[in-house]
């Protein structure tokens, strides 16, 4: 994929994320009123959601004595692998957990979905719409109605059911919960929360050496060439689009960097702030005001600066512009002022859903050491938030989410796995401890939770999935083309199926695990009759499971799940027809995700994004630990949701398909 392809793609999917609103509960079932009388106010449930914690690594570290709190909990309570969602992608898995339904019920099947009419992708979790009515006056556009952002996840969140039964809730950084579901408790949105540009995080690197990045696939960031003149650099920070102006130009803020003639230090002057930074140092949060209409309308954002290098080349990193929790431009918490109150207590914090800047690290805009500093800041902020949440927790539910293990298992796997194509022994020796250190940090987190336990408290530690190496990229669309299921109009890679001849195409892949049949009456140019779909799916599934990597002879695809069998119900227009479960070491290529057709079928993964979990569910189970004994030997994510309700004496609604996991 070219640089432009990915940028355009990000732009396209990013547009859909800004703004907020909450879909009303769709499938609310009657909840037994007896629960209210059962709940005396003394019952407490603490859930630690540790995204991406892998049972194999955890068990190994427990055996080595490096996770004493986990070991204690496992010995006194229970420890099990936890079956993930199909597919085991984070937004899907957390939506399973939130609603107690599978993707057929909550409607989140992948990071991205497609419009069947035109095959174009969009972000699966939220959708933004601008003002429907506007009035144009010269260059100015005056909105006559409000914009709207909608959470696309269907079904009621389990904490909403708890609140209906008078149980206080604290749900901090829950993924797939932007904008936050309507709640009378405290909640803070997590993964899925955009930055101020509407993307999942767009960094900027100002450099006097842009050539260094010319051959890199810069996704989710901008490389801005600058010149140093008399030890001074002037440039602009690009903020959100100005919807009050025709053509929606970007709102930009000027800034100046003064570099010392000799010392490795610089001063950044932006708006009315002056910041001194050493080379190799991140700034505190810098608050920015983006003025849309002078004296009338502005929006707040915040970013961190990093002086990567002053001389001989100047390299200056600006983090994605986060929603400022002190003055949120979009709803990120319930109640609305909770985000600000929290920031006043612990300081400002990353609000974007994916705080680790994996994109900057991928293209070396942040080198290994730089990225590790950034991810340490994220963890430090999250731990401060956690300490306060635990300290303030008195009653009801506390859910707290940690993202650091997930993001760093993606980005640092190559440092712990000598078999990975980009493994470097020297670098690995220096940094291989980092991922394990984050596991150890989670042990400290658990230690604090254990101190909070009493006889009325149930503690659940869970992850949505585990992890696997990502050695080789499988171009699923290329395979479909090579096997005659797709016909192209030319030999180019294309993007967003730009060169697909839909009149001669029977199946296509989108997202990291989705396979769709080009079905007549559903797809805009569908050709496969619905009655032929099952047979076609069986044929493709059989062939895919037979694919072997020519360079290793290994099986590439562990299992193909037909969604009509894997899900209890399914919206045929929305859900893929099959989910591709890759085997350990393999995953769909990035190009597959956006409808491209590279020449080669399987290629090495040469990127720092070196670990993954978007494979077969059986390959990457998550973890479940509790101070209660398990009665179910093979618990799944879906089982946890009704189990939590039952802990409070609430009968789960019928649309929750899981089985209780705890002994009564």
């Amino acid at each position, binding site marked *: 994929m070219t640089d432009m392809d990915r940028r355009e793609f990000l732009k396209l999917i990013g547009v859909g994320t800004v703004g907020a609103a909450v879909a009303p509960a769709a499938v609310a079932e009657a909840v037994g009123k007896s629960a209210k009388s059962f709940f005396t106010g003394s019952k407490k449930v603490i859930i630690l959601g540790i995204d991406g914690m892998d049972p194999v690594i955890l068990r190994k570290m427990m055996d080595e004595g490096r996770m004493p709190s986990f070991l204690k909990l496992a010995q006194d309570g229970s420890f099990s692998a936890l079956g993930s969602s199909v597919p085991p992608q984070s937004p899907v898995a957390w939506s399973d957990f939130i609603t107690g339904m599978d993707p057929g019920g909550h409607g989140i099947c992948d990071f991205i979905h497609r419009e069947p009419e035109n095959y174009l992708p969009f972000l699966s979790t939220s959708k933004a719409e601008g003002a429907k009515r506007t009035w144009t006056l010269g260059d100015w556009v005056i909105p006559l109605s409000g914009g709207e952002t909608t959470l696309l996840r269907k079904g009621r969140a389990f904490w909403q059911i708890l609140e209906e039964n008078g149980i206080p809730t604290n749900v901090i950084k829950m993924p797939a919960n932007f904008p936050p579901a309507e709640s009378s408790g405290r909640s803070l949105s997590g993964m899925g929360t955009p930055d101020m540009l509407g993307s999942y995080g767009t960094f900027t690197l100002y450099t006097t050496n842009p050539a260094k990045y010319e051959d890199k696939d810069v996704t989710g960031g901008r490389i801005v060439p600058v010149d140093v003149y008399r030890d001074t650099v002037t440039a602009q920070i690009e903020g959100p689009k100005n919807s009050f102006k025709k053509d929606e130009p970007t709102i930009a803020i000027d800034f100046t960097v003064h570099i010392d*003639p000799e*010392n490795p*230090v610089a*001063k950044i002057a932006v708006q009315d702030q002056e910041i*001194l930074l050493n080379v190799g140092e991140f700034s505190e949060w810098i608050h920015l005001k983006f003025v849309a209409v002078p004296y009338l309308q502005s929006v707040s954002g915040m970013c961190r600066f990093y002086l990567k290098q002053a001389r001989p080349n100047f390299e200056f990193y600006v983090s994605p512009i986060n929603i400022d929790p002190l003055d949120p431009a979009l709803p990120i918490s319930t109640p609305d002022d909770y985000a600000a109150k929290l920031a006043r207590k612990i300081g400002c914090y990353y609000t974007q859903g994916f705080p680790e800047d994996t994109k900057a690290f991928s293209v070396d805009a942040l080198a290994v050491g730089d990225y590790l500093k950034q991810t340490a800041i994220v963890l430090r902020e999250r731990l401060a938030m956690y300490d306060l949440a635990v300290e303030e927790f008195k009653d009801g539910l506390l859910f707290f989410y940690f993202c650091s293990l997930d993001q760093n298992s993606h980005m640092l796997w190559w440092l712990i796995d000598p078999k990975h194509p980009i493994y470097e022994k020297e670098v690995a020796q220096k940094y291989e401890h980092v991922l394990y250190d984050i596991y150890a940090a989670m042990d400290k987190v658990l230690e604090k939770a254990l101190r909070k336990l009493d006889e009325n408290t149930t503690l659940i530690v869970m992850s949505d999935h585990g992890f696997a190496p990502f050695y080789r990229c499988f171009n699923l669309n290329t395979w479909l083309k090579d096997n005659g299921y797709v016909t192209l109009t030319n030999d180019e890679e294309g993007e967003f199926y730009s060169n697909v001849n839909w009149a001669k195409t029977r199946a296509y892949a989108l997202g990291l695990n989705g396979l769709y049949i080009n079905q007549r009456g559903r797809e805009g140019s569908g050709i496969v009759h619905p009655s032929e779909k099952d047979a076609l799916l069986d044929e493709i599934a059989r062939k895919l499971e037979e694919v072997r990597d020519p360079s290793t002879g290994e099986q590439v695809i562990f299992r193909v799940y037909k969604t009509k069998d894997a899900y209890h119900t399914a919206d045929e227009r929305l859900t893929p027809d099959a989910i591709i479960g890759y085997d350990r070491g393999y995953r769909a290529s990035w190009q597959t995700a956006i409808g491209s057709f590279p020449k080669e079928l399987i290629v090495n993964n040469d990127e720092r994004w070196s670990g993954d979990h978007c494979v077969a569910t059986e390959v990457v189970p998550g973890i479940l630990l509790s101070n209660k004994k398990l009665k179910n030997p093979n618990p799944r994510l879906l089982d946890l949701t009704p189990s939590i309700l039952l802990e409070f004496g609430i009968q789960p609604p019928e649309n929750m398909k899981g089985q209780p996991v705890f002994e009564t």
Partner: protein
Amino acid sequence: MDNQLMYVANLVITRIFGALLSPFSGLSPIWGLLAVSVVTGIVLVVIFKYTSNQAAIRKTKEKISAYFLQIRLFKDDLGLMLDAQKRILRTNLTYMKYSVVPMLIMLVPVVLILIQLGIRYENRPLRPGESAVVKLKFGEPIEALPVLVEASDGIKLETPLLRLPEDREIDVRIGALSEGEHHLVVVIDGQRITTPVRVSNRIECVYPEREKYAFAGILFAPGQKPLPQDSPLESVSFILPRRELNVFGLSVHWLVFFFVVSVAAGYSLKGVFKVQV
């Protein structure tokens, strides 16, 4: 007034204010400000009483009331109404004339109080763990100027010196380690200039800028020793955090709070002191 004398007088006033406000220094800033504002309101009302022509003010206000009554009674007579409005305007000017002298007299204590409040409530001292940029401005080119900066225990230099030759400025960032009064020492060609740096969680005097002897500097930074006249160093300034004043969940500037509360206190207590305002 001689600069030195003014410095001493300011120092004395600052110490007195410090002593008066010391019971509030460990509390939320709202309490000290509230106390000062209420007392100020009362003092100003009393000053007004003894420096104004109370009888004339009373008579003027009665006249204005009479003219308003005239408007209400003769609202169908345009001529009389316009006449009453003209007289109200003229009497108002007379009323303002009676207020000018006491206002000017009151201005002196008000300015003194504002300055004292300003050095306590505009900014706050650094707290342990916080950082601040320090800007040194020079009166001569800095390219060849041998400048060193040292920090006493309790603070540390977090960056090397950053030179801005075009602005004749050298910047450095300091970090606060522990509470107390610490010192930043600027060494210029052997000359050592020591500037105090307060690190505290309490409400205390802070001076964001230190300059050579100058009227404005002495007036607005009472109690602060000016920089030596013979030094190439023209000023030392600190970018300090603003002091937050939270009133019922709203962030309010201390000056707004002071004026609203002192005016409200003065008006509500004028009856007690039998003052015509």
